[in-house]
């Protein structure tokens, strides 16, 4: 057991945005609400209130090096019931953001890099993307009731710009048509961009604010160029 002499000030605490300026992270009373509600409590030592207590004790390095911040699914159940309004989610994101990018687990950071490079998390070239969605569009048109259906790509002045989850154009093509059917039935004026169509911003999960900002900026650019004011961002 290490003897505590002086607590180190926590950079995590300083940087994690508050939910509300009157609800400071320090106000946590370690009541256990978050731990009781969190679906991951007990998994590999995860416990949201423990993470908050570690931050308050200034144990930043330990948290940044540990696996704990990566176990959270960011579902927000903890914050929903927290009586003190503690910024649990933003704290965990802030910790993630402080981890060296090469230590970000799994494929998330790779996905972000690919996205920044190619406009989508799986690095799908534009012609492949267009081929896939047009192909699925033709399949839909062959179904009864959708005779003249066509996927509108980069349609200027449409009412809605629609982004896509990368898995829909990758492994789960059949799920693309659900939205399209609704658009068709509602006679919606929509479009999908052929560049920067990615609807999943993994910067959210890796704590990478810069990457998030870039991805969001690209969608805004698309909207500006196409003259569209409504965005449908299903992820």
């Amino acid at each position, binding site marked *: *057991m290490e003897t505590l002499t002086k607590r180190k000030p926590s950079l995590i605490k300083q940087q994690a945005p508050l939910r509300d300026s009157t*609800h400071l992270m320090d106000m946590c009373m*370690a009541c256990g609400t978050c*731990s009781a509600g969190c679906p991951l*409590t007990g998994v590999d030592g995860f416990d949201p209130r423990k993470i908050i207590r570690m931050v308050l*004790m200034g144990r930043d390095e330990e948290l940044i090096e540990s696996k704990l911040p990566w176990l959270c699914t960011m579902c927000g159940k*903890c914050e929903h019931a927290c009586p003190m309004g503690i910024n649990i989610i933003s704290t965990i994101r802030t910790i993630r953001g402080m981890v060296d990018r090469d230590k970000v687990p799994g494929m998330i950071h790779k996905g972000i890099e690919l996205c920044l490079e190619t406009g989508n998390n799986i690095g799908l070239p534009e012609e492949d993307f267009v081929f896939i969605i047009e192909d699925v569009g033709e399949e839909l048109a062959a179904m009864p009731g959708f005779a003249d259906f066509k996927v509108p790509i980069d349609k200027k002045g449409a009412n809605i710009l629609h982004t896509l989850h990368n898995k829909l154009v990758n492994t789960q093509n059949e799920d693309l048509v659900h939205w399209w059917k609704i658009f068709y039935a509602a006679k919606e004026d929509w479009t999908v961009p052929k560049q920067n169509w990615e609807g999943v911003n993994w910067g959210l999960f890796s704590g990478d604010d810069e990457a998030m900002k870039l991805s969001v900026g690209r969608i805004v650019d698309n909207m500006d160029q196409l003259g569209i004011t409504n965005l449908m961002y299903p992820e």
Partner: protein
Amino acid sequence: MNQPANILVIGAGISGIRSALDLAELGYKVCLLDRAPAMGGILTRLDRQFPNNHCGICRMLPMFDRDNSEEFCLRKGLSHENIEVLLSTEVIAVEGNPGNMTVTAVKQATGVDADRCIGCQECEKVCPVEVPDTFNAELGKRKAIYLAVPYQMPNQRVIDLQACTRCGECVKVCPTAAIDLERTPETLTFENIGGVVLASGTGLFNPQDMDIYGMGHFPNVVTSSAFERILSSSGPYQGSLIRPSDQHPPKKIAWIQCVGSRNPMIGADYCSSACCMISIKQALFAKERLGSDTQTTIFYMDMRTFGRDYQRYRDQAEKENNVAFVRCRIHSIEPNEEEGNLKISYVDHSGKPVNAVFDMAVLATGKDPLRKLPDFAAHPGIIATDAVSEWMDIGSSVVSASGVSERLARMLSSAGIKPEKQATAPLSDKVAGSPHLQVVLCSCNGSLDKVIEENQLAAELKKIPGRIDIMQAKSVCDAEGLDQVKEILLNGPANRVLFAACNAQVFRPKLKQLAAVTGIPKEFMDVVNLRGLTENAASHDLLGEIMNQLEMRANRLFRKKITPADVRPIQKTALVIGSGPAGLSAALALAAQNIKVVLVEKKETIGGNFANIHDAQIREMIGQLMDEAKDHPLITMHTDTEVINNAGVAGQFVARLRHANGAETTVLHGAAVIATGGGKADLPADTLADNKIISLYDLEAELNQPGIDAANINTVVFMQCIGSREEPRNYCSRICCLKSLKTAMKLKELNPNCDIYVFYRDMMTYGESEKFYTQARAKGIIFIPFEKQEKPAIKIESGRVLVEGYDPVLNEPVCIEADRVALASGLIPNPVDLVASTFHVETTQDGFIQEADSKWRPVDTGREGIFVCGLARGPVRADEAVQEGKAAGLRALRILARDTIPASQHSAYVRHAICSLCERCIAVCPFDARYVDPDLGRIMVDPVACQGCGVCAAECPNGATLIGDFEEYGVMDEIEAALG
């Protein structure tokens, strides 16, 4: 009520009743209002209360001059000469200044004329509209015309005009034409009001406002007040503890604490103070009802057992009754697969997640954060009880209410408003004559004619020996009928009256009016509930039964006699022992009412713990009390003095004082207030092995030195509950948590870089002081809970002071090197042996003075005329001690403000000729009302202390003791008639 009210009390819950009774007992005319159609507030829904698991509200009733009030269960209703109760009435505006205020109120139309309704229930039987029963937490149904509280007396119905369809069925069957569906609200104006007590309560949080508890979706999630109704025999299941979904008894019940409290996210940064104890009580009742194998689990953050005897209550529940206590706030309640069951997840002491399934969950709800005070609350002349801003337990509400009564009485006397002398109506000359009974047979507007043949009844009545006149009335409910009776009583020969009418409780207020006009005392009048008897229509001999009842009462009335009242003059001086905040405020409360006060202080100086108090606000408050008391012409102070003897009865005591120089003084007084105080408990010597380890009091003193430099105090550990809350000192000292918080924040102010840790068992920041706890955390102070059996250890290693503990939040041991360790050693009472034996009062096992009842008579002792307040009674904060002092002062004032005290008719007396002086009666008297007069060689009864309970009469082997108005000749005649 004859004279208009001097005082309005808004809210007829516990606080309002207490305050109204206090002021009525001082002789003021009080109007007690409530917007609900029944009085009693939250209490009507609670059958039994912690910590003794009984009710006891009747103990609030006057203990002397008892004939002024009806002595029946106070949960049912209140009847006092000086109190008018106005229900369904809400104050809307207040104008004017203290002493002369005008109050406007609206009396809602209830559809039923309370003066005519006899509570016969016919209307309810025919009403076709059923709505959820709000009294029973909507767990059952009631009619649109209903009784607001099922056991209320008088039991007049009201109509829920929102639910009522105006079908008119009730109007048709009402025998007294009491129902008028077209009635509109009435505006009432009260003029010349001296002052107003605001006692409207705080309301209860509604958990349906939060989506996490499933309230309203899962039938087996109930609030704690609904659980009280389930436990109650007047509840939705007639007292069977079953769960709402399938009406089966639950095997596993969870209590969820802090629902709607300690939650700044919903604007509730406060503790509701009473819920922890309520849940323990409910868990104990669940075990009592359903068997000890019922699993009861309380989910809590801090068990706030801060009342003097509450820690032992909790310990007993935990150890002897196996109530499980789990320190984890619950996130949410989810349905379990099994029908009606509930899933609750929590983390245990080691942080391990546990999924538990319960049959039922009880949400411990407290104060409603949305409740706002009325606009007029701040108007001058309105004094609010603490219970309008804080939820609190009954004892605290009662103390606060009496404190408010004291302030109001002081305000009135400084405005020159004095209670009017009670003019007792002169007795009619006829009363002294030989018994002559007037029987009044009421036909209830002819409706009873169908069941009883009145002429036949009259013929039977004539057979009773004794002089009897019989009158047949169409209805005695209305003014016309009652006037006929008055006429007969004023002009006829009868000096006793027996009504054969309806419910006696409904009818009794009319007897009072009748007594005032006719000069026949109300004790010479009685009522037989003819209507009630006829409802048992199955009876084969209705006439016989009615006659039986009438003859019993007639025989009793024939034997009534007037006992000349034993009137005792009052020695209008008070003796106050102890000059701390409690004693000073009691002394000043009395002096403000023109009562001479002899203030006795054992030490050289007054002020109690003043020298040890550093909080600027509290110092100022006590300093002011000290200055006022020193300057007050009616207060005589004796420092360096003790009371060595006290004899006598309430109103007439003689005390001996002994001064430091050995001289003695005799004081004649009418009442005494014990405020002998207490102080800091010493720390065991072995805990102070290093000068960095000090008591909390010493750290507080150090930090409050002028010019203190705290730059070198960089890490401080506070340790709570040193010696408190475990045997032999198994009580919460109540002040330490707040003191640690304030000291820690002072330290942060002096040195913002100081790291502070507080090791605690349960943070006892009850009520509004929760805000200090929140603020302390916001300042970065870390709080680490520990259990009694795993206390943190202090070690000294080469000059370093280390505190080793375990942090259950991190699930890790923790070791802190501290520049200071502050130990919260708690409070102990000053020795009370001498004062207890001198005043013949009981003490608790911890050496405090035992009050008469911790809830209902918190500042009375078991002996009438002797009161107790402040630290002598139990741990309190200084501001609470001041409040208790005011309350004790007011209790004493009830005696001292009078010139005389009349004894009640129902008091014991002794036939000395056949008394053998065995003294068994003295031993059994629960009110300490009997003693031997050595000069007369007789057993004496203090008729002021005597409550007429009759234990002495039952114990007396010779029949030498009798109870006034229950002498055997009258009672035996009544029994004779019953058996005949």
